[in-house]
């Protein structure tokens, strides 16, 4: 199924939390500032409904997204008020992918965990938690995974300041 087909199906099954789709487009020749958008199409979903949304995607027999390939976050810029949550789903049966994006406010970065739906997201969520400071409600094991347990700050946020030292080891 192509992206349009998936989108139609999502609308048809009333997937919870679906906001809209975003597809790549050419630059508008009349608008000088508009540079268009390249890359993949994706759907935008409410962050609070994300777990239910992916559950619907997994359980629908025509979408059949058996695998969660990736779950990550993005901090678009220093001034941005919201983080993006990016999820990649994959259907082995129908050989299609779906990119999902959700927005989370930086100052209250908390959303339900996807672990009950896909256990694959367990380590990805731990990584997002330590790198972006996102709290996944209901995560079974919300420890740091790559960073030391006592690491201060969230390194992949754009406003992160590099530490001067760590336990007496100079970082400069």
């Amino acid at each position, binding site marked *: 199924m192509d992206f349009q087909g998936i989108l139609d199906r999502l609308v048809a099954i009333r997937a919870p939390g679906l906001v809209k789709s975003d597809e790549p487009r050419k630059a508008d020749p009349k608008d000088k500032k508009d540079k268009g958008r*390249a890359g*993949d199409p994706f759907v935008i979903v409410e962050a609070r409904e994300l777990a239910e949304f992916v559950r619907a995607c997994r359980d629908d027999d025509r979408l059949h997204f058996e695998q969660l*390939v990736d779950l*990550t976050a993005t901090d678009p810029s220093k001034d941005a008020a919201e983080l993006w949550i990016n999820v990649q789903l994959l259907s*082995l049966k129908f050989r299609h992918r779906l990119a999902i994006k959700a927005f989370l406010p930086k100052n209250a970065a908390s959303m339900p965990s996807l672990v009950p739906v*896909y256990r*694959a997201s*367990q380590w990805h969520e731990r990584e997002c938690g330590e790198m972006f400071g996102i709290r996944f409600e209901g995560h079974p094991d919300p420890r740091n995974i790559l*960073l*030391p347990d006592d690491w201060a700050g969230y390194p992949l946020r754009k406003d992160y300041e590099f530490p001067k030292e760590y336990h007496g080891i100079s970082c400069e």
Partner: protein
Amino acid sequence: MANEVTKTMPPSTRLRRTDASEVTVDIRTPDLEINFGPQHPATHGVMRVLMRTDGELVTGAQPHLGYLHRCAEKIGENVEWLQYLPYTDRYDYLASMNNNLGYSLAVEALLGVEIPRRATLIRIICAELNRIGSHLVAFGTYGLDIGAFTPFLYCFREREWMMSLFEKICGARLTYSYIRIGGVFNDAPPGWFEEVARFCDVFEQKWPEYVDLLLVNQIYVKRTANVGVISREMALDFGLSGTMVRGSGIDWDLRRDMPYMCYGEIWRDGAYKIPVAKGEMGTLGDCWDRSWVRVMEMMESIKIVRWCLDHMVDGPVIGELPKTLKVPAGEAYVGIENPRGELGHYVVSDGGKVSVRTRVRGPSFCNLAVLEDILPGSLVGDAVAIIGSTDIVVGETDR
């Protein structure tokens, strides 16, 4: 240690007199917590698995990562698009060509640049040779984990030639940075394709040695069959990919099922097959199945290389690109079939010289998550076999 055990001994282990005539003794001792790593011969790098053992039986396991974390994703947000390429070499250092390829394809997906056909074919040759090399290490070191030293050196004998082939084409033996955004760095030197063809011929002769020496060795089969079984459902739930899902009997390969470059064309030509485990020696999805898939895939890669050599065309090897790359705003996720599974690159651009986000979805990272579930209940020796069969490269789990 003696003291430590005595101190933590639960009361039930002490002698307890129930009545005058009989004495009951509970001889169970407390579990031993043991650090499997960070420096351990079988973790293939600096990874730590905290294991809880009852004698030889593993009752719990918890992988601890991050000893090799080098902030690849953060670096990606601070260097220019092309400058990031050498960093991709460093996460899965056994399959650097594939990493270069994955990143290049992701950036190219945003750029929309045309890749010359010669460049595409050279890319496939390099990626497949690298896959052979990676599987050789995986299989060889797996033999080492099981306790067979010799197959390891047999594997490295062929890998040596593969690396010298890469040395001839790009000057490096491990971290190539050869596949660039828009094509490949330079054309193959004269006589290189002929040598690759010779390598394929010799490899086909040597390949049965691995099968005879290790894969069908009765002790090897006894050690790996029915050990570390990953069921179909588990493989899907944990988002496993590559040899891990094929080892669980799922017929899935990104090269065929979501073709990139000209893998689709090669498939339609019938040049290669996807080996899928059938649980021949034990339960479907055991360690033996995974290693079988790897050994079989080497031969399929040889066939793909042969196809590319036969269909080689003349022409440029890199597309037209400006010196300082500015990538159009947008975001793209490209997953390719790395030797270890799906290597995904998710790149976000705001139209500038530097990426906003470079996300690496490492196959080892995702494949490793399954350890917590399949290790308990195995023996310590099995734990080594299971960790080895997931074929992780710690550089990539930690990035």
